[in-house]
């Protein structure tokens, strides 16, 4: 334990990775001694008596090795890594007050500090009339509510906590993509939901005014949609926004109705709501339309604001849908009898939820660490059962390591494991590109996919691996896509198309059901 030693959580994660890369150890974690970190260390068998005594301002170095000499070497290496001074620039400050004094006209604060400290720091920002973007997780629910109430009182946005991305006037906060400017606003209780919506709009030749991430819990009944409603007010008053898309993971129906009613009563603009996984079929009105997937939301909002682009995009998506259905039919014939199941390994929680909703319509219940049904709930590290989808962005995977959008190593490990399972018929993955993401991901995935297919091939199995790549042309080049295709991956332009195609490889639904699914999730009529 290092008393009173602090590095930010991303630095700690990167140091842990570097330590593990050096080899000679079985497991390791370098973390601050918060209660939450200590609980997780205990679950991973990495908490010692000394670690238990660490306080919130102390750093714990926890290492498991096969023998004492390896442990000694690993500890020395960890000490050396921690003693390296982080890079500093002339824009660095040691405290918030001096940064604010030195920087005139600050409008936004971005916070990525341990959750229990967010209230203390964010309150100061709100007092100074700054909009706040909070990437941190584990912010106590009461703190989130108090901060959002204070932000609304001061006419501010409080984006988060656990906000993956926001794009304000073309500037990306957190993760996010280079998106053309346009007249569509996005509100998302979901980081990757915003990323897929904005990149698909860009792909269709459209663009966005702003994308406001409100944090994954905003539409819970406790938080009561405070920031979703504030973001609606902001975009209603924004002259550059003509239509608004609201994207969320599954929400309580009362909360959904509350937000929709507010829009119906006071909106001057057009809306598309996409509550992923909502099984209720809602009737469109003049002001409000509903969509069941991100791809169909994008088409529906284009239909409202840009008819020519809508028509061109619909034709494109229709062609892609028909080609994928044909492709799935052909592919299913190459599988052997035992290859019955789909496995999904996701970095994006919303993309995992969306795939789950689609696949359950075709294949029946799916096991997942996101499942609310205890019969089908798996811990992420449990072995897969039948059809299984795992969200690697869940807390159990993110202790002392970067989010899977930054670090794909856990998913790649699991990909190899699934490739060895003879009951697997198809594997689906997402690859998120953009700010904050290393270019290495393309190479790492290409290599891993090729190895996974080779492993299955040695056991005389064909192994289809599908990949949804979320990014724009500035982030993913044609040669990147070629490299992924050369590895054997089938690359899709939307997550919904990938999931639907995977389902069709394993089961051929009745023509009527297939037509309904294409309409609901892809926004196209395949007749």
């Amino acid at each position: 334990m290092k008393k009173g030693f602090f590095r930010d959580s991303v630095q700690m994660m990167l140091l842990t990775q570097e330590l593990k890369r050096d080899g000679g150890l079985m497991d390791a974690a370098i973390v601050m001694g918060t209660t939450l970190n200590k609980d997780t260390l205990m679950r991973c068998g990495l908490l010692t008596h000394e670690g238990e005594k660490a306080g919130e301002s102390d750093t714990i170095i926890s290492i498991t090795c096969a023998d004492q000499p390896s442990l000694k070497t690993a500890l020395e290496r960890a000490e050396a890594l921690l003693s390296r001074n982080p890079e500093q620039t002339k824009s660095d400050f040691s405290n918030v007050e001096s940064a604010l004094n030195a920087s005139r006209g600050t409008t936004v604060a971005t916070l990525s500090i341990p959750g229990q400290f967010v209230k203390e720091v964010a309150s100061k920002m709100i007092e100074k009339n700054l909009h706040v973007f909070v990437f941190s997780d584990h912010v106590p629910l009461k703190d989130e509510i108090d901060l959002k109430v204070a932000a609304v009182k001061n006419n501010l946005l409080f984006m988060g906590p656990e906000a993956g991305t926001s794009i304000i006037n073309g500037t990306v906060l957190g993760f996010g993509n280079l998106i053309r400017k346009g007249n569509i606003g996005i509100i998302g209780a979901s980081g990757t939901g915003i990323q897929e919506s904005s990149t698909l709009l860009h792909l269709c030749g459209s663009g966005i005014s702003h994308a406001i991430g409100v944090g994954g819990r905003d539409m819970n009944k406790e938080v009561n949609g405070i920031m979703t409603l504030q973001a609606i007010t902001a975009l209603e008053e924004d002259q550059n926004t003509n239509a608004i898309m609201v994207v969320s993971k599954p929400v309580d129906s009362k909360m959904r109705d509350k937000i929709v009613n507010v829009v119906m009563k006071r909106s001057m603009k057009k809306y598309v709501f996409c509550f992923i996984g909502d099984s209720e079929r809602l009737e469109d009105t003049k002001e409000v339309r509903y969509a069941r997937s991100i791809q169909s939301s994008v088409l529906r909002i284009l239909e409202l604001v840009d008819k020519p682009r809508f028509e061109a995009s619909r034709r494109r998506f229709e062609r892609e849908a028909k080609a994928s259905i044909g492709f799935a039919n052909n592919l299913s014939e190459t599988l052997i009898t035992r290859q019955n199941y789909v496995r999904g390994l996701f970095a994006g929680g919303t993309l995992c939820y969306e795939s789950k909703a689609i696949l359950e319509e075709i294949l029946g219940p799916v096991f997942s660490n996101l499942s609310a049904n205890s019969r089908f709930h798996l811990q992420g590290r449990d072995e897969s059962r039948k059809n299984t989808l795992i969200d690697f962005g869940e807390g159990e995977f993110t202790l002392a390591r970067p989010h899977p959008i930054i670090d794909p190593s856990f998913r790649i490990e699991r990909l190899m494991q699934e490739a060895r399972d003879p009951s697997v018929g198809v594997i689906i993955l997402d690859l998120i590109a953009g700010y904050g993401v290393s270019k290495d991901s393309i190479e790492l995935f290409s290599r891993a996919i090729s190895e996974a297919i080779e492993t299955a091939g040695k056991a005389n199995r064909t192994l289809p691996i599908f990949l949804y790549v979320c990014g724009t042309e500035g982030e993913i080049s044609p040669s990147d896509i070629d490299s992924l295709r050369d590895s054997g991956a089938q690359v899709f332009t939307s997550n919904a198309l990938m999931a639907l195609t995977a389902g069709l490889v394993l089961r051929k639904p009745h023509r009527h059901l297939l037509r309904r699914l294409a309409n609901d999730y892809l926004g196209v009529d395949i007749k």
Partner: protein
Amino acid sequence: MKIPDRMVIVNVGARIFYDTAISQKADAVHVNWRPTIKLEKDLEAILRRIGG
């Protein structure tokens, strides 16, 4: 409620997000944030007694 026209960012915590802001040519400063060190309970009591 007005969405800011100009982005001037103060980044507190992970440097990766400061780098993202700078790479987009946004005005930004970075705070090398650390938690406030909490005094041990007995030391706090001593300081209280001596009026610290």
